């Protein structure tokens, strides 16, 4: 079980968090102007690497902040954890 160092609450068990998928996916500023292809790309085509991955974790049972976590999907080693911002 991961131990996620929440910048607000300290290191907490994974069970306190909800996973939110890949981080840093920017929502198109004007969705209506996006082509079907661009929109589908935004919606569906996310990275699924073996190795380092930036992802969102929601500290559901803690500060209720969305965090951006660097996690190696193979070793589960965590890198920087920070508050998620667009």
């Amino acid at each position: 079980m991961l131990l996620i160092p929440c910048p607000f609450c300290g290191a907490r068990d994974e069970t306190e968090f909800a996973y939110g998928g890949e981080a840093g996916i920017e929502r198109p500023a004007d969705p209506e102007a996006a082509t079907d292809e661009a929109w589908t790309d935004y919606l569906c085509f996310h990275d699924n690497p073996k190795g380092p991955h930036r992802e969102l974790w929601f500290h559901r049972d803690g500060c209720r902040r969305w965090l951006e976590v660097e996690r190696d999907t193979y070793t589960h080693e965590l890198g920087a954890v920070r508050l998620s911002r667009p």
Partner: protein
Amino acid sequence: MRRQPFRAAEGGHLIDRSEPLRFDFDGHRHEGYRGDSLASSLLAAGVRIVARSFKYHRPRGVWGFGPEEPNAMVTTGVREEARPNLKATEVPLSEGLEAFGQNAWPSVSWDLGGAVGLAGGLMPAGFYYKTFMAPARWWYSLYEPLIRRMAGFGPAPRTPDDAFYAKRRIHADVLVAGGGPAGVAAALAAARAGARVVLADENTRFGGDLLRAPGEVGDSDGLAWIDTATAELEAMSHVHLLNRATVAGYYDHNLLTVAERAGEEEGAPGAPAMRLWFVRAREVVIAAGAHERPLLFDGNDRPGVMSASAAGGYAHAYGVLAGRQAVVAGNNDSIYRVARLLRSVGVSIAAVADTRSGGDVRDLPCRAGEAVERVLGSRRVRGVLLRRADGRAGDKGERITCDLVAVSGGWSPAVHLHAQARGSLRYDEERGLILPDRAGGANRSAGAGAGRFDLDGCLEEGWAAGIAAAASSGHERAAGEPPRSPDRNAGEAPVFWQTGGGKRFVDLQYDVTAADVDLAAREGYRSVEHVKRYTALGMGTDQGKTSGMAGLVLLSEALGRPVAQTGTTTFRPPYTPVPMAAMASGLLGEGRDALRRTAADDWHEARGAPFTAAGLWRRPRYYPREGMDEAETIDAEVRETRAGAGIVDVGTLGKVDIQGRDAAAFLDLVYANRMSSLKTGRGRYGLMLREDGRVFDDGVVMRLGENHFYLTTTTAHQHEAMQHIELLLQTVWPELEVYATDVTEHWFAAALAGPGSRALLERAAPELDLSDDAFPMMAVRAATVAGLSALVFRMSFSGELSYEVAVPADHGLALWTRLLTEGREDGLTPYGTEAMGTMRIEKGHVTHAEADGRTTPDDLGLGRMASAGGPAIGKRSLELPALRRNGRQQLVGLSVIDPEARIPPGCQVVESDDMRPAPPLGHVTSFCYSPTLGRALALALVENGRARTGQTVYIASPVIDLSMAAEIVSPVFYDPEGTRLNG
């Protein structure tokens, strides 16, 4: 006859001779002492056949001393207290213990299944795959029952385990796994340095190998040093000592599970049978020791063939003679120590056979350069045939009479935890050892588990590991001098595994022989993982602790490649079996989840309402009535509400308070329909979409002020909805000044429904003008209701004139009871979720059964709602071709033609009633019997459903051979014009 014929007159530091205990094994009464294990007491009683083997039902005796035991599998207790698949070496003796050997009928001594072995040939590797092939129909009728009867371990108990299991969580700077000399040294060093230490050991007392054989630490007895050290640790408040506690699993980020057999401790009444610890440790010291390896020779599974260190251990720790006359055989120096230990309790030593030349010891009958070729005797050891270990031709060997063969093939470090943590392993060719290499995670291995077999080396490595682990966790106080021992004999073993042919067992538990491994290699298996699965080598409950290394070497030889290239199978947790009941503790039944109750819950319970789960909430289904069954009661609740007035607890709905300068703009982005155009004091039904265009949640948004909104979400999705709102506010539109607060717990709400609700509310809130002009549909007013300050919403889920009254949760029960009292003369009917569901189906309102994560607003007939407005979440996706194409499933009503028919759960909608397999048009999402319309109704998602209105289709459930005709109609079955909303 003496009751413990194989117990020495004195000796045995683990037993208390003043307290004899009686126990039964396979129905025979025996006696042992407090402190005995079941294995030691069986040996003391002279019971040599303890179980039958898995595949061939060969008689088996005790092989080992601890968790590595492959043979002595027993079941303790009967019926609901039966615990199968225990190792006799790990079962502490207790007064009145009932134990049974496994895999035998009627008993381990007289087992009919043993005839398999008498028939001569053994079942080779892959026997099942090769034999039970055809014809296929024989599988269920013949093969499977036959295999089930013959194979497997103890039968699983048929009744729930009513013992108490517990879980504990603890944080530590340093967890030390293993309480032998290395582990105790590590714990002492780390604790003195100031680290919070957990020391866990599987035995009843600390000492590790010192329990089995004496040793010296400093200038005193090794166990005495252990006792002094653990007493010092015990006195430290930052140290936690765990006996009978096996470190079973090593998981991500240094989370380890420790299975503590707490219930076995004396004088601990009320302790759980097992306490499963979750230890989050900054650093781990793995001091797990080593397992003695067997030697391979014909008949090496016979009762009486035993691990040398175990035989010595039974003598030293329990004063038990594992036999009267012993041959001690092996490939390392430990056999001399064992021989002397055996002799010290009165075992006569017939021979000490050392596969190495030299190494002659004057006080023992040594046989340098000799090895056991074969065991004599069919049910137990009667002697051995010794031959030259180098296999010189013409040597006929010599028969030696004995009833105990104590064998040592060297030691395999217990690298399990190191490997579970994804540490890498290396093979030391010269020493024939698989050793921990690079650590995976914050851990270090020490002592025999890291390949240091001398006592001094264990102490030195353990101490150093403890100091280093404490320092890594920030504790560097001086720890004093490390303990030392004069024992610096590393006991190196040359690689030597086997002699001769015959039935040489590699895996005693799964009956895998050397020939099986050879056969697998000949049949083309190359990967050690495949060989494991094909032959079942190492797949027993001992997980190859004794067999793994021998199997690996045999396979490498058969394939003609170095051991290092063959590699090991994956080490997975748990290290030893952990009862499912311990893992399931707290995850089943009542108490698994927090139970959420609305403010009126006590009233529902007092009325005897059966509850249904809605997320964590429980909600009353209906209120039982004298002389009426469930269906009649629900029908009555519906009828009385539609004819007069009803009241329902809607306190479980999610409620969110939204405030801030940009609140309205934000809601326009969250809901598919526009909210900023709402006037203060008015509300609107709203649809939340996921970004992929599917309906996510629905509810009502009320504008309480210019920058203040109150919205409801469904009971089912309240947590996800709040999480969604917080995600958007934080990561997509942080520039918006909006404050969202989950106020679900703060408010209680009840809905008054029915034509009589207005008159009732007028009396309860006399200052509130309820006329249509003053209080139209979808309006919200602050008011005093039944003396309580409240918000009143005019909205309807039932289709009737209806008001929802919300009060602070503390006033919820008061509101509920006062409204019921007020409504007594109006015949106000409390109704539950069943009647509520029936009325919403009659009105075609959707819930998460319809908004199932696949449906768009248009699929649900709500396309127009989502057509207006701006670039809200999910809107762009609605324009994607896949969501606009023809042929999508759409929400329709199904009116069942036969008024007597009732719809069962899980029905499909099909075009024809011939019950032949065909792709369905769709499926029923909700169904009820409508007392209002006098027939069964359903909501369904049907391909191109709206265009099929008026067609006849069939509601079918192939599994119960049911089909009923229904007409596709509008989902709004009742009062489509909505006139009843005005009362």
